């Protein structure tokens, strides 16, 4: 019974410590909103500050992508190839900065945010940063690189040849 109480105390202390670690973090972005166009690349930076009294170590920062319009399918893998970062130890009062490089895969409005959680997997809520609102304008590429003359011309040429052969045989 005594041993069980001791074990429970240790668990509570560990969870409290982990929670305190997460609670001591503060995330901020260099931009609140981004306007770009379909197919373009863009970058934003996140600063993770440790306001706690002890160094924060064993943390993971994860980038999340959410469709805000509600009618566009978002596969986060397409938007950024490196969405998970294993952070170095952040000293008390110190900070670390991360650059997130992204591709605008769909037009519309998406929300991007970063969550930081302990690598230990302790059941504590992750610390999240503010959402970056990304507005992506559609782009029409009707004649990409001048493909249209070839795409229309070659079948037309062969079609004319086929008709010519048929007419000649018909005579």
């Amino acid at each position, binding site marked *: 019974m005594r041993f069980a109480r001791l074990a429970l105390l240790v668990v509570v202390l560990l969870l409290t410590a982990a929670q305190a670690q997460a609670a001591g973090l503060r995330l901020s972005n260099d931009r609140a909103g981004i306007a770009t166009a*379909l*197919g*373009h*690349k863009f970058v934003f930076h996140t600063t993770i500050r440790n306001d706690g009294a002890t160094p924060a170590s064993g943390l993971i920062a994860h980038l999340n992508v959410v469709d805000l319009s509600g009618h566009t399918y978002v596969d986060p893998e397409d938007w950024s190839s490196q969405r998970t970062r294993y952070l170095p130890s952040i000293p008390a009062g110190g900070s670390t900065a991360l650059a997130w490089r992204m*591709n605008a*895969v769909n037009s519309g409005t998406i929300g991007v945010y970063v969550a930081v959680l302990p690598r230990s997997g302790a059941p504590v809520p992750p610390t999240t940063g503010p959402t970056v609102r990304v507005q992506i304008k559609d*782009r029409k*590429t009707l004649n*990409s*690189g001048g*493909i*249209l003359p*070839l*795409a*229309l011309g*070659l*079948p037309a040429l*062969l*079609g004319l*040849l*086929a008709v010519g*052969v*048929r007419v000649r*045989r018909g005579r």
Partner: protein
Amino acid sequence: MEAVARGGRERSTPAWIVVTEQELRDLWLGGRGLVLSVAFSLLLSVIAYLVATNRALNFLEQRESVNLTLQVAIAVGALLALLSAADTVSGERERGTLESLLLTPVSRLEITLGKLVAALSLWLAAFVITVPYVWFLGRGVGLVGDALASGFVVGTLLAIFLASLGVLISVFAASNRVSLSLSLLVLLALFVPTQLPSSAQQGWAGDLLLRLNPMTAGEHYVGKIVTNGHPWSQDISWLLSPLVAAVVFSAAALVVGARFTGLRGGGSG
């Protein structure tokens, strides 16, 4: 098939060449080859337009766009050769022209060889049509030469394999419909491994399946050269299966064609 009879009298020209000439005339001046070529160029136009658009939007790299177009061209070009070959014996049988063809002083081996070569002309035409598309998509990065050369080698091997398979099926098929359906079924079966999830293609079993299947092995080889920029020798082992399939199936088609071509399916006629 009058030309075949004439060819029999022209001692200077080998009979299989006369058969090939006549088959080419039927295929290209009869209009079927040109109609298939128009359809092929339309398909490539759609693919090229889509990949060019995707490249403009940064979703595809230049090498990937060339590879995608080339893979489609190889697969569909070989399919055209297969469809043409699947009509060779069963089609003649169904149109009632096989009897007069068998009565000409040309051996069945030469008839089969002539028809096989003529069927391959569809692949050659498909490749010629592919050239401007690959040039357009791959220009500027020194990619066009390797892409076209590897596409030609792999596509020719696959076209020989599939056209020979078509002839084999056509010799034994009871009707032209059966021959065409069975040929398409076999082709689809050969393409099935490309639709497996990437996890299923990993490991020794997945690797072996991809290597044994001439279609997947050939397309893998082209992909490595075009997309990854590998030298020709680095993945040469992937060419083994298309090469073996081309040699074995063409030899089998000639032997079977010479032995079993008859007025009824299965060579019983």
